[in-house]
């Protein structure tokens, strides 16, 4: 393989890792090329040119949409794995008898349908998908009495009925779970590259694909954070797991519930937040788009807002960070004072 130092533009655009970085937004590859640029600042222009070429050659999917598709696919696979599982020993004769009876009914129904001449459809998977858009929050009650509060711009997939031995759901975005205790049926949240396994607890998960980390924050009970089928961390109350998606690093630390869980009480709370962070939160919360070209003071902002209008919040923050604003429809323009 050619030495990275001698790379020409042709080598660069044909490099699988470089393609993955630009085309797929692969975080693992991003680390390599950012490091490469640090080592060879003189090659910046070449790198930019190569990026342009790749961007023109391929159409790209936004990360949120990709993770949504991935989540849907994983739920389809999970629903289709069961036939292997159900081949285990039947627990009682009664179950067996019931199964035979049900099978007979299904067979008869099926024959009747066939007879009527309708086309055979592939098996329909009974997953339910629930989405919240920007500016929207929702509370769900699952059939096992588990309560889930979803934050804005989030998505949850769950089966219409849980199986006898497992409760599995899929999440993208942010949600607070209060899982009904059931020792015989663990509850698993599949989120990004992690699985979060619990018996019955309250915890918050935050995974917005455009953000660097995936956080699991435990309020009560116990959860296991699983990656590649192995338990990586066990959380105790008031600790959280922070997963850095680009490096795969997973660490445990304590967290401030009043900050992390403010959203579910409809409170927006900032703690030394940068302007960029504030924009991200408000865009999601109020379904607006910020437009600003001047550099707004990057000094951290600390403050709390409960059930306030966007205008009131902005004038509060603008006073501290010294900006003025204009809200028109779904757009917020920011001007430096």
């Amino acid at each position, binding site marked *: *393989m050619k*030495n*990275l*130092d001698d790379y020409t*533009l*042709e080598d660069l*655009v*044909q490099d*699988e*890792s470089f*393609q*993955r970085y630009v*085309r*797929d*937004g692969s975080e*693992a*590859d991003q*680390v*390599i090329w950012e*490091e*490469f640029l640090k*080592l060879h600042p003189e090659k910046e222009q070449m790198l930019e*040119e190569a990026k*342009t*070429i790749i961007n*023109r*050659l*391929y*159409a*790209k*999917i936004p990360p949120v*949409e*990709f993770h949504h*598709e*991935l989540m*849907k*696919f*994983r739920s*389809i*696979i*999970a629903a*289709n*794995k069961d036939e*292997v599982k159900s081949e285990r020993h039947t627990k009682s004769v009664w179950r067996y008898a019931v199964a035979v009876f049900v099978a007979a009914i299904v067979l008869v129904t099926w024959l009747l349908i066939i007879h009527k001449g309708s086309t055979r459809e*592939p098996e329909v998977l009974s997953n339910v998908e629930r989405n919240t858009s920007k500016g929207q929050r929702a509370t769900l009650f699952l059939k096992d009495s588990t309560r889930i509060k979803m934050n804005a711009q989030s998505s949850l997939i769950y089966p219409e009925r849980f199986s006898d031995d497992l409760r599995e759901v899929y999440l993208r975005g942010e949600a607070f779970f209060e899982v009904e205790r059931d020792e015989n049926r663990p509850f698993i949240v599949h989120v990004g590259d992690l699985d979060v396994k619990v018996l019955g607890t309250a915890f918050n998960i935050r995974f917005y694909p455009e953000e660097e980390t995936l956080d699991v924050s435990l309020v009560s009970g116990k959860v296991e954070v699983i990656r*590649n*089928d192995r338990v990586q961390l066990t959380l105790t109350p008031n600790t959280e797991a922070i997963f850095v998606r680009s490096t795969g690093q997973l660490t445990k630390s304590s967290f401030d519930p009043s900050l992390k869980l403010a959203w579910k009480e409809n409170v927006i709370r900032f703690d030394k937040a940068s302007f960029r962070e504030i924009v991200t939160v408000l865009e999601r919360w109020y379904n607006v788009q910020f437009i600003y070209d001047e550099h707004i003071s990057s000094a951290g902002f600390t403050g709390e807002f409960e059930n306030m209008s966007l205008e009131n919040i902005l004038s509060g923050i603008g006073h501290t960070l010294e900006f003025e604003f204009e809200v028109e429809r779904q757009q917020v323009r920011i001007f430096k004072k």
Partner: protein
Amino acid sequence: MDLNNILSIDTTTNLSALKESLSNELSDVQLWNMIRKGDADAMVKLYKRHYHILYAYGVKTCHDKDLTKDSIQEVFTNIWASRSSLNKVKKVRSYLLQSLWNRLVRELKKTSKRSDIFNNQVYQSEQIFSFEHQLIDSEHNNERLKKLDQSVSSLSKSQKEIIFLIFYEGLSYKEIAERKSVNYQSVKNLSHKAIKKLREMIIGLILATVYFFI
């Protein structure tokens, strides 16, 4: 040699090693065989690895993002549903692209939209060179489009093909040489020329766009 130099050499080597380790993951064929045995994790890995290239190809082909997303989902779902009866595949990525193409053709024929470009049964590489939809709409676009069209058509058929094989099917020079029954060196020369041309075309287009706005 000063210390700085040594350090930088050392780090570039580390970088190469890190890069190497990323490509040391299970190969497509290994994943494929695991899927045939019903390994769900392998299925998800394959999905993650090839989703973006399929999306790129689908959108370039049919200009319909939702249709592309649905079709990709169906391609992978079908593989999983028929996992126990899957045949062995040599080049998984080519197989996936071909499956996506088949699906798109079927869907588009149903709605009789753009059926004109799908007369050919074999899946095509030409569509990836349509850059029009990436340009913003404006009355003055026509002139530039015309220019671009000219430069695209100035890529020869074999140049277009080789770009497709490298950038979409992800074939190496060696694999292309085998498939096309030509020697390695001529594949290398052809690709070098094609990429150079492509670069001129794309950078030229960007400059033209910038120039236009000034």
